């Protein structure tokens, strides 16, 4: 038998990733994106060389998705990845699917990596992005004395990076996790398939953080509260009858990185989401009330035992004997229903990856970073947050024509005295 026909090494999808390929569609792509802007134009040839150099350092990323009889799995991909020009609509499936589960793009001074959620989560993606940027800058002749924790090609991969750490937490004694009721969703018209509107606003990190601290909240809590207030603005602008009909809990989910909590070094998915909400049926909330509610709800939810309870719910679904024995196409049908019901139970998501940094002199050649959340036709507006230096980037991914949530969010920040710089791929310039 020729060597190229031999079975390839493979691994199971992690618990969070198991659902993503089965429920994927033209709009629900599960691709998210991390980008940096350099001070000079990106050289695609150097970028390709840098990418090829770091591929062996991340063996868990060198895979592609293959369907099995019961589950999808990840098989080793021997092909070297390519670098693609930027697209006007990021995070969309390629018409002819690329083989890998991540793709590197460039446009002007910006370099971006799009990851499929079956491969990794935002934190794992950030580790890869930091290594790629470092390698690219090294190839352009900029070396750093102290490389800090950037995972350079010279370092040996840690076997824990490819582990599914959800499985290590399984404890059948945990009680069931309570489901949420249906959440408020603004009524909007979907963009055509293949289009994804992305709007990024940049604000000074220090000033925003001080504003959050003044209210006794963290940055994530402050941004989540602003997003809830932005959705509430849209709800309050509806006619009275429509308001009465559509009043439900306005629930934002916040993905929580479980690595520090459960001592994990995995680069695969390892997160759960926690909800923060206001109930629109109880009347309008002012901003300070929302901040207080979000703060207390998040503090209550950030409990390792509570988070583990949610992990147990997901693991029980995966390990249930009937679920395991169903063939993949049948499983996909059921999972679509389950995922659709889950998406109806929250209004939007806000994912804060925190601060990304590179040691000097690499950091001197980078001006800012961006994190674009994956598109979803159910929860059409989602936000991704990342900061670099003193710049906080909030990126809205929106699958609808209506930019009113982004507008309300950024104008709220502007009214509080924060300077906001906005850019978007929406072609609304034709006035």
């Amino acid at each position: 038998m020729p060597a190229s026909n031999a079975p390839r090494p493979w691994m199971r999808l992690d618990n969070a990733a198991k659902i993503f390929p089965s429920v994927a569609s033209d709009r629900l792509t599960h691709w998210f994106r991390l980008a940096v802007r350099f001070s000079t134009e990106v050289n695609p040839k150097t970028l390709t060389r840098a990418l090829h150099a770091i591929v062996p350092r991340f063996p868990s990323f060198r895979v592609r998705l293959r369907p099995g009889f019961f589950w999808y799995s990840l098989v080793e991909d021997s092909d070297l990845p390519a670098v693609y020009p930027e697209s006007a609509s990021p995070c969309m499936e390629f018409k002819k699917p690329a083989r890998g589960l991540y793709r590197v793009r460039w446009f002007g001074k910006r370099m971006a990596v799009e990851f499929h959620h079956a491969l990794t989560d935002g934190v794992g993606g950030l580790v890869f992005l930091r290594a790629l940027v470092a390698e690219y800058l090294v190839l352009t002749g900029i070396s750093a004395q102290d490389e800090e924790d950037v995972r350079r090609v010279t370092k040996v991969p840690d076997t824990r990076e490819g582990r599914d750490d959800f499985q290590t937490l399984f404890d059948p004694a945990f009680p069931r996790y309570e489901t949420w009721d249906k959440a408020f969703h603004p009524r909007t018209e979907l963009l055509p398939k293949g289009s994804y509107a992305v709007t990024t606003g940049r604000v000074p990190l220090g000033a925003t953080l001080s504003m959050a601290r003044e209210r006794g909240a963290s940055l994530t809590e402050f941004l989540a509260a602003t997003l809830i207030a932005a959705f509430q603005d849209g709800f309050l602008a509806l006619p009275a009858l429509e308001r009465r009909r559509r009043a439900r809990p306005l629930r934002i989910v916040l993905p929580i990185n479980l690595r520090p909590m459960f001592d994990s070094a995995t680069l695969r998915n390892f997160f759960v989401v926690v909800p923060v909400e206001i109930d629109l049926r109880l009347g309008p909330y002012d901003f300070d009330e929302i901040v207080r509610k979000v703060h207390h709800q998040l503090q209550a939810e950030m409990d390792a035992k509570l988070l583990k309870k949610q992990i147990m719910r997901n693991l029980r679904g995966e390990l249930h004997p009937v679920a395991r024995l169903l063939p993949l196409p049948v499983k996909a049908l059921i999972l679509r229903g389950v995922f659709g019901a889950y998406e109806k139970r929250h209004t939007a998501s806000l994912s804060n990856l925190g601060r990304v940094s590179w040691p000097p002199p690499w950091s001197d050649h980078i001006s800012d970073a961006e994190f674009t959340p994956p598109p979803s036709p159910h929860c059409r507006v989602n936000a991704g947050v990342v900061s670099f230096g003193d710049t906080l980037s909030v990126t809205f991914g929106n699958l609808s024509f209506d930019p009113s949530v982004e507008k309300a969010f950024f104008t709220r920040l502007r009214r509080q005295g924060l300077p906001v710089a906005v850019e978007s791929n929406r072609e609304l310039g034709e006035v």
Partner: protein
Amino acid sequence: MPYCPRCGVEVDPSVRACPLCCTAIPVFDDLGPGEPAWPTSTEEKALDPSRAYASSSERRARAFLGVAAVFTTAGLAVGAVDLFTTRGVTWSRYPLISLAAGFGLVASALVWHRRPRVWGGTWLLLIAGLLLGLDWADDGRAGWFPTLGLPLAVAPFLLTWLGVVLIRGFRRRGYNVLGVVFSLVTVELLSIDGVVTLWSGQGGWGWSMVASLVLVPMAFLFFFLHFALHRTPDLRRTFHF
């Protein structure tokens, strides 16, 4: 950087209108044209700005009225000719029933265009209704419809639905789509043949068995090409659960 005079956010110098509120951005010559933040529409697929404010429901309402006018005119013309020539409604019952069903098919697709399951179900009801109407127009009672018309109307809908579900579930589409299509065509031919022979009082299958002998191996061949020849299968990977 230039800023939006309405919502106060700074925008890229290359932008002519605020991405949030569409307000025109004042142009300052000394700022220069700036670098675009995203590729232009000529390089890659771009968002269509004109649809941001167009109402698709208005377009559909106009289309609905147009279709209604065409079908009503045709119905009136057919009815009038029959009335003038035979002094009653005789042969025109058939085209009138067909026109009503045709109008229902187009109208349901326009009204429920975003809900394919609803208009798919409506189409099934309309086609079954059309067959029942034609049967009733013959002699004023349902003769062949329950045993022949209804099964023939329902079977292709069920099989098409099954095919769509299966094909949409495939993450990688290739020969497996042809395999599904050939399999479902086989089942459809068997069901047509079975229903017709049962209705005529004979029972069993005839010509459809010959067609199946050709189609089933073809379906197996396509599934084989898709799944087996792609790469030597790793059974442990394929069947892990």
